[in-house]
């Protein structure tokens, strides 16, 4: 589930540090290069959470504006990528929470749909994804931010611990709590089909 963390070279670290320091000093060209490195990551997090490209781009912009404003206070005590993930997850879940659910879980009595190309399948899959997103948005903040980093940011337990500055055990317990609540919210959607039970 979790993507393996790239191990940047020392030269890459030094270059990134230079870009961060220059951006913090107001150099927009340096900031452009930072955005060039990470815009894909942030848009992906936003898109997984929101499901619309235009909206994901808007939220990704909000993320980078927050980052730009906060950079003078950024201290290099944790990797920039983890810090960025945290800002992205917070901004994205805030945006998701502000948008009221547009799908009723009552209409979703089918378990997980296949990834076929049938228009009905596609529509059902989109509804299902919306239901998952809104179930995440309705979680208490500490659960929501943790599961958002796993589901939208595709971070491992270890990376989540670093991004949130919390012990690994706390990540486990929060994900445990978050997924229990998600299962309650999603009800039948996470009940395996009869075939699966009998298989």
């Amino acid at each position, binding site marked *: 589930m979790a993507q393996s963390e790239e191990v940047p070279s020392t030269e890459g670290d030094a270059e990134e540090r230079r870009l961060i320091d220059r951006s913090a000093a107001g150099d927009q060209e340096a900031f452009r290069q930072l*955005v060039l490195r990470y815009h894909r990551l942030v848009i992906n997090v936003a898109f997984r959470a929101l499901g619309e490209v235009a909206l994901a781009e808007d939220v990704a912009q909000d993320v980078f504006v927050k980052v730009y404003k906060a950079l*003078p206070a950024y201290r*290099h005590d944790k990797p920039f990528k983890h810090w960025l993930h945290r800002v992205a997850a917070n901004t994205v879940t805030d945006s998701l929470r502000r948008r009221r659910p547009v799908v009723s879980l009552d209409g979703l009595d089918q378990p997980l749909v296949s990834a076929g190309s049938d228009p009905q399948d596609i529509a059902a899959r989109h509804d299902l994804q919306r239901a998952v997103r809104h179930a995440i948005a309705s979680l208490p903040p500490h659960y929501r931010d943790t599961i958002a980093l796993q*589901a939208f940011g595709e971070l491992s337990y270890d990376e989540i611990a670093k991004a949130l500055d919390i012990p690994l055990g706390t990540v*486990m317990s929060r994900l445990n709590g978050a997924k229990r609540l998600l299962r309650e919210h999603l009800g039948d959607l996470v009940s395996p089909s009869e075939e699966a039970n009998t298989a």
Partner: protein
Amino acid sequence: MLSHATTRDWLIPYADGMLAVDERRRIDGHIAGCASCAGELREVRELNLLLVTLPPAPPVAFAPFWLNLQAVLPQRRLMRMPRIQPYRRLGIAFAMAVTAALVAAGSAFAAPAALPDNPLYPVKQLEEGVRLALAPANERMPIQLQLANERLREAQAMAANHKPLLAENSLRAFRVIVDDAAAALKNPADPKAAKTTKDALHSLHLRLDAVERENANRGDDDQEVKQLVAAANDELDRIEQEDAVAAPPTLVIGEQATPRPTPRPTPRPTPRPSDKDHRD
């Protein structure tokens, strides 16, 4: 054998592959004989499957994304005039001009020595920016070196005053200046300036050492200051090394000088196209 409650507590990290081998074995042992926990594990896996079905974004072009972002980025040094009635503008402008002249006259003397915790410090930054911007290209490097020295003086003073955050800011600004001046420092336009440049870099090293000592002596021992000093020293080393590679060979006088005259180049016939096949 594990209880139902313990097993259920561990099902989620189990499904995420986060348990150690012996813990997994214990869960496996319980699930093999417990239909209820096995059913719950299937639900956990179904939920994980739902979470990973959230797709990544389709490709997004960077250029328009950046242009839109740039348009909303805050301008850190932007000053805005409030909307004022036109007839009042003249009066306000006059009052501002007089005040500015008085303030400028006073601050022009005080600002160059201002430290980052001084209210006049922004005036100093502005003055420095104007000075650098107006300098001809061939005179920029000495000014940059002077400003770099000044940043280190500030960092040292801030470290001495237990203000590590301000010291860090000065060190970051120092790196920006050195970074801007790096190309000129590596290849000075005037070969005679090479010696001066070397001395200046040495002096900056000494200043950095002084900042680090101050940071350590004052009991703060701020890690970020230490790292910034180390990174700045590395940057200066890189510049010096590349400078040494690019520098012309040193003239040796005395017994160690090479007595041989410069050999004349041996004339060689211009190779014809057919010679190409015989080359290595």
